[in-house]
């Protein structure tokens, strides 16, 4: 199976007055699974459509495997795209749907005509196409559905047909535009596993657009997190989770959302939260401290708070607490352990200091170091 790198440089795109993509450069390596993640309207789908050739960039170039395809038609790029709505041809059977990409490339116009085609098409080419369709159907376990029409299939089955149609042509790369978002939660998790397995088997390059950070975190080699037409951070899923480059990345990645506390770094460098000194030091100035739910601890002394809500998630429990100063903090605990609150639901909160994140007033990450512990 062919696989190629994708290289975007200096891509800009606007619709009317709004700049949707602001100077995007991105290299997707050969055989890499890269997710484009972001809120709706961040430009991730537009970027994918520019790679596919369905939109032309106002500025910048697209290279596939070293070849400049910026001005090529979508069909000349040898990319396969899986759409959110699957986009199966409604009047064709599954077999015909899967065969279509090959028929369009291997058969001339005359051979594609409904009746004439049977006479003029070369038998060998038709046999090759049939074999490829059978193999793709077998890979996705839809052989028994080949003679049905898309309308007779369930969402998950349509998804498989769309995947089969994509992989039958052995593309340079797969482009996926939120392919799982129309499936119910259980099927989505299942298809996620199947996609990962499929990708491992094919070793192809994947560009995967999603707004669901769980999908991106679980499937990708690298994630490009997009915000307002820019790539905010590009890196491995762990990198985005454990060292977010900006406040926006920290807020987007992770569930429940990261806890944010207003902080002040004193001239001496010590980080203060609500007037309390912490064991952290950084560059002086106003800042925001980010703490993941699993890094919040119930401590003997610390920030006084009370429990607002308790959510059970099987082995884990999320406690939503309100600090006396007003902020809401979510913490994650083992469900088997006691909450640590008194009978009135009051408790004191601290956090694992070396896993906290500090962001300056400009939203950028500030490096921190641990200081001598002064009673937290």
């Amino acid at each position: 199976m062919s696989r190629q790198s994708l290289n975007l440089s200096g891509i800009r795109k606007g619709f009317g007055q709004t700049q949707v993509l602001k100077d995007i450069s991105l290299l997707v390596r050969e055989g890499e699974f890269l997710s484009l993640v972001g809120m709706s309207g961040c430009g991730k789908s537009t970027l994918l459509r520019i790679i596919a050739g369905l939109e032309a960039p106002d500025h910048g170039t697209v290279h596939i495997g070293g070849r400049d395809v910026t001005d090529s038609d979508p069909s000349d790029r040898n990319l396969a795209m899986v759409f959110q709505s699957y986009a199966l041809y409604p009047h064709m059977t599954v077999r015909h749907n899967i065969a279509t990409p090959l028929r369009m490339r291997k058969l001339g116009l005359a051979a594609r005509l409904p009746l004439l085609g049977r006479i003029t098409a070369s038998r060998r080419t038709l046999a090759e196409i049939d074999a490829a369709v059978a193999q793709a159907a077998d890979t996705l376990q839809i052989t028994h559905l080949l003679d049905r029409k898309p309308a007779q299939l369930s969402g998950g089955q349509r998804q498989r047909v769309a995947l089969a149609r994509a992989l039958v042509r052995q593309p340079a790369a797969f482009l996926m535009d939120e392919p799982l978002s129309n499936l119910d939660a259980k099927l989505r998790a299942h298809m996620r596993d199947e996609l990962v397995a499929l990708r491992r088997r094919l070793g192809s390059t994947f560009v995967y657009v999603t707004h669901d950070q769980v999908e991106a975190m679980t499937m990708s080699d690298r994630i490009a997190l997009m915000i307002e037409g820019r790539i905010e951070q590009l890196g491995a899923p762990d990198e985005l989770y454990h060292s977010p480059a900006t406040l926006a990345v920290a807020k987007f990645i992770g569930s429940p959302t990261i806890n944010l506390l207003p902080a002040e770094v004193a001239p001496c460098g010590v980080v203060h939260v609500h007037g309390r000194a912490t064991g952290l030091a950084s560059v002086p100035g106003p800042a925001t401290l980010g703490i993941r739910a699993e890094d919040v601890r119930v401590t003997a002394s610390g920030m006084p708070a009370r429990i607002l809500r308790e959510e059970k998630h099987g082995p884990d429990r999320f406690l939503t607490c309100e600090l006396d100063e007003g902020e809401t903090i979510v913490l994650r605990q083992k469900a088997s352990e006691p909450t640590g609150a008194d009978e009135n639901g009051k408790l004191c909160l601290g956090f694992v200091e070396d896993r906290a994140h500090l962001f300056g007033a400009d939203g950028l990450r500030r490096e921190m170091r641990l200081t001598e512990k002064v009673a937290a």
Partner: protein
Amino acid sequence: MRRFIPHLVLALGAFVMLMPFYWMALTSIRSPAEIFDISLWPVPKEFTGVQNYTQAATTVPMARFMLNGVIVCTGILLVQVLTAVPAAYALAKLRFPGRRLLMILVIAALCVPMQALALPLFVGLAKAGLLNTYFAQMAPFFLSVFAIFLFHQSFRSYPDEIIEAARMDGFSEMEICWGLVLRGSFPSLAAFSVFSVVAHWNDLYWPMIVVNDTALAPPPLGMLFFSDVETGANYGALMAGAAMITAPMVVCFLLARRHFVAGITMTGVK
């Protein structure tokens, strides 16, 4: 009682619409003596249906009129669809400068009545020496803005993602337009065909202007020749002729009815 009122109102409407047809059928089997009888009793005192229909079919070349009607209607429909479908596809699904303006022009053109164009068209055809031809009967209707509008409304709802998938698979725009989008709008095509064929089968105005040769006359003009021939007016035979030329339309509508209704409800055009 409440439940029956809508049905009653609808029945009244249906009665008003169907009455002329019934009257036509009834008159076509009555004898001249009974023509002006106010009674609507379906069995005539003297059954002269056979004579009436024979007279209508033999006095004038009715089959010829029908054939002319078929030729004209098919020709018009064919060119209308061939031109309107790509135009509607472009307006509905392609992005190009001036698209909105063109769409406004299409809608504006819907408001121009045939009568306003009759004189220049007639003069043009006369200068070109094309009067008394099939072409003269068809040409003014080749480009149908109504068809463009109707197809545009229905093409617009075709999923963009399927079109994009087709582009990535290597379909040409024409293949997308005819093979995918029109195929998905089949009810609109059926609805438009019925509209077009009925309108031009029944058209008297334009053929009367450009044709005076009996051999080229479509059915309504033929009927006019027939009533001229039969001065003194045998209404029974006249109605028999009318029944004969109406029948194909009724059959055509009944066959396409399901698609027709789906087509007009889908596009919201009445």
